[in-house]
């Protein structure tokens, strides 16, 4: 269990900068998600922390020890692979015992530690099975037991849940979180699934084109995205662009909205983001009586169980609103509506 510190790390494959001057610290015992689209460098960063790739420049420290030139087998890390990578020629128990045997453990101690690890992932009964006799979720648990039984300083997970179906994935997220809490190991989790990152981790690092674009607690990143990419990659967002002056934002279609209080001093080209669930709708008898921040006409609507999504046409600009379906009746398509939101929910984005 240890703190992991990545400083100014870069790695180039040929002409492609896979990881570009990344600095990020993973605190002891934390559960981190590295989130990004494919090709963003998240897996490469993880593989450098593991020791499968070596950075061209920069340093990686585990527990204060510089490891950037230490080979993977000497780093005392645990890793869970996307396809689990269980040894097909060994039983479940032998898979879990492998890392301990390599370290020279044997006899009763070895047996007890293997049994404890399998109990932790609730697979004690299947110790004698071969990997091909297990379901996807069970293999996942074995891979996890194998990675943590050696008491690694850091646990690395490379999209470990992506091969599972949705229901099982949700169960495993809860399970993974429980096991991580119980063991207390610093955990770094690579995923391209934003919901997974939000629900499972204490902190999220968002990567794009080999760089970290934002790092913070899930709520913080969701509520205060630092860029348009962060706003749209992590959840949905309406992006409003226009010209700012005197605390107002004049949109490209001529309509104007109020900026949040801290936006009073900005001027020139400017962008804001607002989450669809922060946009409130109310139906109007006719367009003349409209108030609120913006007015428009309902263009499309769709239902997904407990939520309704409306797309409102505001003078040519489409704005999405997600509302909880209550007892009231739905607003029909073509109906004039007013859009209201709290000024503080509007997130100002830096100029692109």
């Amino acid at each position, binding site marked *: 269990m240890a703190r992991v510190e990545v400083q100014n790390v870069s790695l180039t494959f040929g002409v492609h900068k896979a990881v570009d001057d990344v600095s990020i610290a993973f605190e002891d015992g934390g559960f981190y998600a590295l989130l990004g689209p494919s090709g963003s460098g998240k897996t490469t960063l993880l593989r450098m922390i593991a020791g499968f790739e070596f950075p061209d420049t920069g340093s990686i420290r585990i527990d204060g020890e510089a490891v950037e030139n230490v080979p*993977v*087998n000497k780093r005392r890390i645990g890793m869970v692979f*996307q*396809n689990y*990578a269980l040894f097909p020629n060994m039983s479940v128990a032998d898979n879990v015992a*492998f890392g301990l045997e*390599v*370290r020279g453990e044997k006899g009763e101690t070895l047996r007890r530690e293997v049994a404890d690890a399998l109990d932790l992932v609730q697979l004690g009964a299947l110790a004698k099975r071969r990997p091909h006799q297990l379901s996807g979720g069970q293999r996942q648990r074995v891979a996890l037991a194998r990675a943590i039984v050696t008491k690694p300083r850091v646990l690395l997970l490379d999209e470990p849940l992506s091969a599972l179906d949705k229901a099982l994935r949700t169960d495993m997220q809860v399970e993974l979180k429980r096991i991580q809490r119980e063991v207390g190991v610093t955990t770094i989790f690579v995923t391209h699934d934003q919901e997974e990152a939000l629900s499972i981790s204490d902190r999220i690092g968002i990567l794009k084109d080999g760089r970290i674009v934002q790092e913070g607690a899930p709520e913080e990143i969701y509520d205060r995205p630092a860029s348009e990419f962060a706003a749209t990659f992590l959840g949905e967002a309406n992006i409003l662009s226009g010209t700012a002056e005197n605390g107002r934002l004049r949109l490209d279609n001529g309509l104007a909205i109020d900026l949040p209080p801290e936006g009073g001093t900005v001027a020139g080209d400017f962008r804001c983001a607002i989450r669809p669930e922060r946009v409130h709708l109310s139906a109007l008898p006719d367009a003349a009586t409209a108030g609120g921040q913006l007015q428009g006409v309902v263009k499309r609507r769709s239902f997904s169980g407990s939520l309704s999504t409306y797309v409102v046409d505001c003078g040519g600009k489409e704005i999405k609103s997600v509302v909880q379906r209550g007892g009231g009746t739905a607003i029909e398509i073509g109906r004039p509506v007013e859009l209201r939101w709290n000024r503080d929910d509007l997130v100002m984005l830096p100029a692109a």
Partner: protein
Amino acid sequence: MTGKRRDSGLVKAMPLLLPAYAWLTLAIFLPLSAMVYFSLLTSMSPSGQSATLTLGNYATFFSDPLYATLLVRSLELGLIVTLVCVLIGFPAAYVLAKIFKGRAREAIFLLVILPFWSNSLVRVFSWSMVLREGGILDTALNAILPFKVTFDLMYSYPAVIIGLVHSYLPYMVLTCYLSLQAIDDALIEAARSLGASRFTTLRRVIAPLALPGVLAGSALIFIPVVGSFMEPRILGGHGGTLYGTVIEDQFTAVYNWPLGAALSFILLAVVLVILLVSAPVLRKAA
């Protein structure tokens, strides 16, 4: 239900299976049965004298210890050549399967299967030019080394081994390559992440998973090498008298086909016994 479906499947598969099985029947079982018949004849003379059936040809093998001695020598040769092929072929296959990618892999592959493209007789004779005194190897060594060496491997046991390894190495490389390539790279990375050194990873993960390929290659090499006669005859000289060359003599020099056929079947029986005895052991290992 399933039985019925399987039956109709077999009927549908017949047109696909038939050519191969018809060919195998014609090309293997007919000549083989003819050879069984020959091996039981007292003599085969072109004049058409009537021959009677006998087991005498098989008895000859047991009455003269020379045959058994030669058979043991041939089995030994088979083991040595197979072992050398494993030692050389497995590392090469590993590099091909796990380290080279794309173009480089194709190029090296071409080099590996190049021996298949040349006539086997030409291959063996070209070795004789390399290995003899004053040959290519001798001249090259003397050009590099400051002192004089006489290097003449021609007509020796090592020459036979060199020639046979050259001929059969591609089988080992190909079978090992196939089984190594099927090993997921993530398994190797997983072993390394658990603290295993490269050697431990090879011993505990790669070797057990590649074993079927090594065994298939070994069978493909061992069986023909035990019966080989061309390489021993051309490269081995007098020292190259082996079980295979004796059989060849019976057919091409002495014209004692019945004895040659009988010796062949004894070889076949011995090889089958070896495979049967080793099968359970190997299955356990795999």
